[in-house]
């Protein structure tokens, strides 16, 4: 069943946004509170749970697995690189509109967005199917690929075996602004990820064998994770734009712009959704605003992750158990 809104509510929200008083009292550029916890799933290489006050609940897990390298048949590239494979799924219990196959389209859109922003080293401009403009690509000087993550470091034996990071995001509850929550969770989960060290032995004749060291204390972080992008979703309602929309505000959106930005302020991706149009001047303004807000978000998110990791380390050093609240939290 699609979500519905009445004309009276739509008009109320529209006029409210015009005079900078949203339905819940926020102003246009205000974000809701974010509750973040990393390391909530012990069986993964890294995990994080992000909740936005208002209902959105996203769980992201990263599993590091060993597999064969993926070589591009045309360019021959990839023999010395690892892989990142992303998947986003919305649980049917998250919202009534996700019942049955209702979430399929959204799952696809979010998965492709994640793959694009995290796995490519080019800035691409695309719009979702409702708008048929051709996409154009421009390259950025982020030559590491994979949205900043160093894929070469993930290779174990060039041409044969590499680490594959499976990033899975599960949307547990829908309260608006899924994209931002998924990317924040992914960044936190990747920061939390620890990959075991491997020891490669040269057997001679070009044959190599490797062993995975099973030391829980001696693991590696994902290199290049600080340069991962996060997303800011801007919703154009009327002549203004807001961030962090609630479900009713999302129903009033004419055009949606997702701006992916990294900590240096570089634009890593852009996606436009919904049927409405955006004037060129407003488009530039929204992108600029998204970039600035994105950098603030990254700074605060990184600070929070670091604070949590430091606190955990202190506890471990003192011999105290590190207790994650997980799903017992409020």
């Amino acid at each position, binding site marked *: 069943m699609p979500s519905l809104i*009445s004309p009276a509510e739509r008009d109320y929200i529209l006029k409210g946004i015009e005079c900078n008083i949203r339905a*819940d009292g926020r102003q246009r550029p205000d974000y809701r*509170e974010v*509750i973040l916890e990393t390391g909530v799933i012990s069986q993964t290489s890294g995990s994080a749970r992000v909740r936005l006050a*208002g209902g959105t609940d996203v769980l992201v897990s990263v599993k590091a697995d060993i597999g064969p390298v993926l070589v591009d048949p045309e360019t021959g590239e990839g023999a010395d690189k690892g892989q990142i494979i992303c998947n986003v799924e919305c649980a049917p219990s998250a919202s009534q509109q996700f019942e049955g196959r209702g979430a399929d389209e959204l799952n696809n859109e979010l998965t492709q967005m994640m793959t694009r922003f995290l796995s490519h080293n080019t800035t691409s401009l695309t719009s979702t199917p409702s708008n048929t403009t051709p996409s154009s690509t421009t390259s950025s000087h982020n030559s590491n690929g994979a949205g900043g993550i160093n894929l070469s470091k993930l290779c174990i034996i060039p041409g044969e075996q590499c680490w594959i990071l499976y990033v899975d995001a599960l949307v547990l509850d829908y309260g608006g602004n899924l994209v931002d929550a998924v990317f924040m969770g992914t960044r936190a989960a990747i920061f939390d990820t620890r990959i075991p060290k491997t020891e490669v032995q040269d057997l001679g004749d070009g044959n190599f064998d490797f062993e995975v060291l099973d030391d829980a204390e001696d693991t590696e972080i994902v290199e290049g994770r600080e340069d991962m992008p996060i997303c800011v979703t801007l919703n154009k309602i009327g002549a203004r734009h807001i961030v962090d929309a609630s479900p009713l505000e999302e129903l009033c959106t004419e055009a949606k712009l997702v701006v992916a930005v990294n900590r240096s302020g570089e634009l890593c991706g852009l996606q436009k959704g919904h049927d409405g149009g955006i004037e060129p001047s407003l488009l530039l303004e929204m992108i600029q605003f998204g970039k600035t*807000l994105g950098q603030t978000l990254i700074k605060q998110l990184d600070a929070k992750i670091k604070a949590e990791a430091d606190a955990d380390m202190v506890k471990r050093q003192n011999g105290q158990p590190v207790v994650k609240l997980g799903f*017992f939290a409020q």
Partner: protein
Amino acid sequence: MNVSFHSPAPRTAISGSKAHKQSKQHGFEDMELDGDHEDGSNGSGVKDSTLHVVTPGEVITQDTAFMRGHGTYIENEKVVSSVAGVVDRVNKLISVRPLHTRYTGEIGDVVVGRITEVAQKRWKVDVSARQDAILMLSSINLPGGVQRRKQESDELQMRSFFMEGDLVVAEVQAFFGDGAYSLHTRSLKYGKLRNGSFITVPPALVQRCKSHFHSLACGVDVILGLNGYIWVSAHVPQNLDEIDTELVYSNKNKEDITPRDRESIARVGNCIRALADEFIFINDTIISFAYEASLQYKLKDMNKKEIMHAIATEATTAVDNMKG
């Protein structure tokens, strides 16, 4: 442009055995139909002064003398709970009232619903129950007077009355054979909702009281639907004799909703959400107290968890002081 990141906190209940006792008595007043506990004590479970909360699979009692009611089943001669909730004992009948459940209504309940479908001579309304409720074309007031008769042309232009997505406030009139509610809006206080915003709370938190239409001192009207759907709107001074019956189905909000009104509406909305987060019963008294408690905070700060908790605590103590 500020974003704040927090760590999760374990859930803390609002203090006060007083709050618990009050909510207990209120809750059980509905359930006990024979109400023959003269000393005002409730009939809850085996423990007297505390709520007996159970989870699915938990054994309630091993005594075979009890009959089992809703939310329980018998396994190995023991009465086991099948839902997460509070044990309700009425003489020999044990049942469990679940915490989170769909709205189950009685005849005469005032509910707020959203039109989901326009069918032949009726509308399907979502009231957060197990099935969509039905609003028959013959159960609404047609524009042009309360007594206007239904004509064929009305059936052909049903969307000019209610369209998909519209919010209505109605009363439960009857049940259909399959358990779906039949609603009616045959009073001038019922009908299409305008000039405000919509909030959802768990249905269990809205208690039955004399009136569900409240006009708060701050110039905000609140309609507390028993199904957990709440409408907070700007106060429209309405003399029931002078209502223009042609405009009851208009979609236009009133022109002069000032920013001040919007702030009050947002503030009341946030208060209701703060109370719902702490699972406190919602009625007009506690909303007024919560509103007063919230005036010391800035409107946009009201979305923060600690401030919501503070407001809810202050409102509960104010209500307790008023009663006790």
